[in-house]
């Protein structure tokens, strides 16, 4: 019963028509019928009643059987009456199986209805509004969990908190050092060109320090952390969602909010200000290096001027925003993780959404801060 011979010994399926005699020959298998595709249309079938002799079929599989039945069906459509004869019993049995199952085979889906632009817009707005409300509800839930924690701090999962601080904070130090050093150099270089033109080289201190401390270091750190840590939060919770681990937690009586969200939220709120302070220092150092090399402002001149022009307020304004950024990143990351349904593609989609949304919200929040602080006269 060699129904699927080795590819090297495949004889292609053919139909021989010799006057009134029609014969099927060769291997009616997946390998054999690939060659048959064009042939039936080119055959001149005799008119009227047809006897299709199957004794020459060497091997047949379900694909070949389907092809044969389809050829017969096409012939019957064009007014022939077809008899398949002289099939081997085992081939006959397979044809019967395929004939029976084919009757219950499904049809290809109807093409999706074209949607009008208005309907599309309506659905788009509707789904975004729903997500916005759900996200607000999620923030509320997290706040409730925090309140519960404040009442009963003994239940807090310290191990998870410190684990998160290590992965989100300590492990991020090298990349943050590298990027903020480069940002310091770039800003000093661009500004230095202009300052040199006016002979105001020493003002490089204000330029680099204030830009970095107040705006760029917090932003860059938040963006790196959103890409590095926020995405991993989404992927982790999303995968747990698929493998029903989140449901298992609920069944055991552990609130996913307490175990999965709060430690991450608190860890990031601790870590991000620290990372930003680190980025402040490294980026100002980058500016210092460039100032010495390009603008003849020595380290001692730089450090002498630094405390006179940079007030603690500037530093605190930069650092003060970062807990908000941290909350945005952690909440968006966790929320998107819980939105995962189904399978692997959903994890990927929500991880992307998580990073894009958290970066967008961080920058939007930063803009809001600038406006508010400007309004209360805290420019310097």
């Amino acid at each position, binding site marked *: *019963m*060699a*129904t*699927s011979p*080795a*590819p090297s010994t495949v004889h292609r399926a053919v139909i021989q028509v010799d006057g009134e005699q029609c014969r099927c020959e060769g291997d009616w*298998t*997946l390998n054999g019928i*690939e060659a048959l*595709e064009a042939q039936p249309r080119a055959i001149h079938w005799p008119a009227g009643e047809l006897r299709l002799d199957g004794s020459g079929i060497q091997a047949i*599989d*379900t*694909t070949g059987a*389907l092809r044969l039945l*389809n050829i017969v069906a096409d012939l019957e459509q064009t007014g022939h009456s077809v008899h398949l004869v002289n099939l081997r019993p*085992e081939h006959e*049995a*397979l044809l019967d*199986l*395929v004939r029976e*199952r*084919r009757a*219950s*085979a*499904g*049809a*290809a*889906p109807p093409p999706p209805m074209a949607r009008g632009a208005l309907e599309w817009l309506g659905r788009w707005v509707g789904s975004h509004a729903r997500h916005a409300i759900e996200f607000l509800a999620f923030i509320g839930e997290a706040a409730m969990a925090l309140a519960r924690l404040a009442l009963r701090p003994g239940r807090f999962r310290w191990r998870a908190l410190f684990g998160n601080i290590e992965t989100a904070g300590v492990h991020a130090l090298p990349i943050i050092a590298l990027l903020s050093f480069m940002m310091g150099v770039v800003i000093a270089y661009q500004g230095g060109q202009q300052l040199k033109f006016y002979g105001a080289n020493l003002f490089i201190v204000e330029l680099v320090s204030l830009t970095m401390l107040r705006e760029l270091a917090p932003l860059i750190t938040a963006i790196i952390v959103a890409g590095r840590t926020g995405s991993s939060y989404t992927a982790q919770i999303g995968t747990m969602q698929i493998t029903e681990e989140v449901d298992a937690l609920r069944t055991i009586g552990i609130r996913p909010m307490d175990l999965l969200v709060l430690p991450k939220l608190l860890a990031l709120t601790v870590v991000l200000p620290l990372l930003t302070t680190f980025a402040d220092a490294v980026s100002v150092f980058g500016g210092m290096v460039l100032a010495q090399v390009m603008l003849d402002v020595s380290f001692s001149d730089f450090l002498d001027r630094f405390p006179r022009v940079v007030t603690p307020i500037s530093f605190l304004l930069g650092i003060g925003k970062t807990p908000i950024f941290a909350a945005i990143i952690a909440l968006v990351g966790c929320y998107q993780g819980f939105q995962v*349904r*189904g*399978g*692997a*593609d*959903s994890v990927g989609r929500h991880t992307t959404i998580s990073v894009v949304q958290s970066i967008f919200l961080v920058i939007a929040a930063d803009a809001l801060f600038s406006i508010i602080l400007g309004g209360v006269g805290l420019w310097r």
Partner: protein
Amino acid sequence: MALSVNPADAVITVRDLRTEFGATVIHENLDLDIRRGEIVALVGGSGSGKTTLLRAIIMLLRPAAGSIHLFGQEIIGIGETAAFRLRRRFGMLFQQGALFSSLTVRENVAVPLREHTQLPRQRIVEIADLKIALAGLPADAGNRLPRELSGGMLKRAALARALALDPALLFLDEPTAGLDPVSAGAFDELVAQLKESLGLTVVMVTHDLDTLWSATDRVAFLGERRVIGYAPMRELTQAEHPLIRAYFEGPRGRAAREQACRAK
């Protein structure tokens, strides 16, 4: 306990196989022959390396030593193109189905066809629909995503994908686990029917005693890192080895045997 099999009859020949994960040795000096046209089950206690053996045979895991012949061809150290050609000739049903979650059932079944043949799109859809019907799924299942299917339907959809290329050799990893008795029985019948009409060789890992009694030609018992018993079910349950006795002599084992004897 290698059965002497005419090499022309053997679809799979495993000799002196050794697999290990780090310091843990899973198989040592394991021999196994699987003949064309038979349904063979691999059984054994948890951790006896049934799935590992299956993964070694289908080239997902590289053994530490030994040789495995598939269709007479050595697969250890096989080249990429030869492996690709060989993969066309067997199908695998994974334990959790492993359907691609972003594709519908019909698209899932069409993946191997698109990858391995040059058939036109319309033909591929036709063939995929037939395989879905062969696996016993209702007509509308083809349009659904895997996450919308129940456990039993998922298994059937995965079987349809494993059958996509009309393989001569089919591997099943716990095909009836998690199915209700009616679906499990229907699944056994389906595999037997496909074996009869297509001349399939089937290798399955299973713990389902009813399947072992009703659907298999031969059962290989894994224990002590090798095959310690390889015989038709009726003979295997008479074996003296303590591991085999412990496996089949429990209340479930005895109940299944009594039922099988009554049915005969």
